[in-house]
């Protein structure tokens, strides 16, 4: 068969969000791949320049549903560094607790999605049933199943009571038993292992060269984790290990994420047992002093980095967000070359794509065709109205 270019996306059952991958294939082997972004823009960085720091917390949360706490924590840490605030210990512990619960939730979701892409629907149903346990725990703590809204500049907004602590420990115990079952299942079920082993190879040098992040990097035997390299919140006080695997393929990424689940259970238990008494937040000033800072955070998908520059008023001068999925795209293209068409959804799912995280940069006005104009007109009207009110020039 001669070379053909097929489109995977923007609409495709393997993708949960729109992204366009153009594959040049010959028979069943992929020769080249090209990624085109931009289908999920919402204009967040530009919008953040016209909103105050407190309003920006809620904007940052809506970058993504699954990693909402990562973006708010990263942003709030940056602003606290600019103001020179020292958050009380109890607030930091609660922040860490919600971070780890979010990581557990995200990894269970990912296990289900990867199993579904491989055709293993039974594992998909089991892991998503267990995910309900984590979401119930998060609802007990914060009141929401997604978008927890628990951060504020200077600390957290809600406290944890004794009964909530007991419920969390029970939930973690249940999940630990189930995770051991999944470890067994994921690594010994022959049809599943045949599907994911040897697929999407990313050698160690290439992973470092293409600046991959997160479990994608750790599955290529590089022990790089922001929680150890650049500790934030209370990670310098909690004992845990960085999980790596050395098979450099999708099986390695499954193993890394399952090991991380087990580490997260230990961290949650440590946090609950050693929660100190005290305040949960301190008052933050409205106007942030001039300066700039960089804040990094280990989201479930990798390194999340926020750069905030302030100019002394109550609105930021520049807010730059780089979500982990964007850093993994060059590595994905490298992994897709010389793979099979049948492996495309698995390779793409193995980096844990969160495409709405990766595209926020500028207001996208869809000037393409009549139909999309009319569809987005009410949105355009609202944005124009908003923007006009808050123009600072």
């Amino acid at each position, binding site marked *: 068969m001669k070379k053909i270019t097929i489109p995977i996306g923007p609409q495709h059952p393997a993708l949960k969000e729109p992204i366009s991958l153009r594959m040049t294939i010959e028979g069943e082997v992929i020769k080249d791949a090209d990624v085109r972004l*931009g289908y999920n823009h919402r204009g967040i960085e*530009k919008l953040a320049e016209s909103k105050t720091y407190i309003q920006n917390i809620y904007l940052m949360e809506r970058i993504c549903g699954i990693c909402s706490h990562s973006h708010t924590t990263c942003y709030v840490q940056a602003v606290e560094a600019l103001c020179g605030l020292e958050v009380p210990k109890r607030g930091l512990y609660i922040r860490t607790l919600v971070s780890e619960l979010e990581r557990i939730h995200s990894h269970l979701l990912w296990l289900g999605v990867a199993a579904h892409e491989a055709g293993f629907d039974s594992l998909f149903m089991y892991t998503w049933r267990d995910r309900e346990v984590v979401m119930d725990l998060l609802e007990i703590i914060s009141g929401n199943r997604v978008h927890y809204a628990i951060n504020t500049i200077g600390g957290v907004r809600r406290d944890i009571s004794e009964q909530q602590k007991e419920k969390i420990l029970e939930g973690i115990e249940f999940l630990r038993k189930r995770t051991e079952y999944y470890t067994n299942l994921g690594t010994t079920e022959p049809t599943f292992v045949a599907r994911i082993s040897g697929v999407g190879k990313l050698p160690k040098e290439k992973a470092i060269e293409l*600046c991959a992040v997160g479990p994608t990097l750790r599955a290529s035997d590089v022990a790089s984790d922001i929680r150890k390299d*650049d500790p934030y919140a209370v990670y310098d006080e909690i004992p845990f290990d960085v999980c790596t695997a050395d098979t450099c393929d999708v099986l390695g990424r499954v193993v890394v994420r399952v090991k991380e689940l087990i580490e997260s259970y230990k961290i949650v238990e440590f946090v609950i047992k050693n929660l100190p008494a005290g305040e949960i937040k301190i008052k933050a000033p409205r106007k942030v002093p001039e300066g700039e800072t*960089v804040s990094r955070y280990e989201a479930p998908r990798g390194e999340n980095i926020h750069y905030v*520059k302030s100019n002394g008023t109550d609105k930021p001068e520049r807010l730059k967000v*780089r979500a982990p999925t964007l*850093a993994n795209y060059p590595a994905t293209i490298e992994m897709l070359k010389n793979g099979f068409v049948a492996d495309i959804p698995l390779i793409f799912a193995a980096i844990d794509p969160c495409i709405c995280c990766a595209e926020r940069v500028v207001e996208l006005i869809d*000037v393409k065709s009549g139909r999309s104009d009319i569809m987005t007109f009410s949105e355009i009207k609202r944005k124009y109205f908003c923007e006009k009110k808050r123009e600072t*020039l």
Partner: protein
Amino acid sequence: MNQQELIEKIKNELGEKIVEIKGPSARRIFLTTSTENLVNVIKKLKDCFSFHHLSTISGVDNLKEFEILYHLANNIASLTVRVSISRENPVVPTICSVIPGAILYEREIQDLLGIKVDGIPDPRPLLLPDDWPEGNYPLRKDWKYQPPEEKIPGEKK
């Protein structure tokens, strides 16, 4: 080695290539240099001080000039290299020869701020649609939002 020693070593290695270097807080270093020395500085940082990992490239619009920040990281600190370029002629050399993973970030600043990156291997715009008008760079501070004209098919003229 800790952060202070790292700053001293970098000062000694790179000497007159850097304009200024400071470490305002734990694990954060800010380094300023010029566009001519940019590629050499980053190459030295990568080879001698193991700053392999490029987190992202930010572009900031100051109304007087553009500032491009390259955020690098190793296991001791996170280092930001700053270059300033003029608004009338914004050109900066590419670092893809040193760090190949920088390609998507350079395409992004080219696309949204209108900064020309010299020698970039893949100059296509990254995020804006294909029929976006030329010269229209949304992330600049003086960019005004103009809603497109509403055309209803078949309306009375």
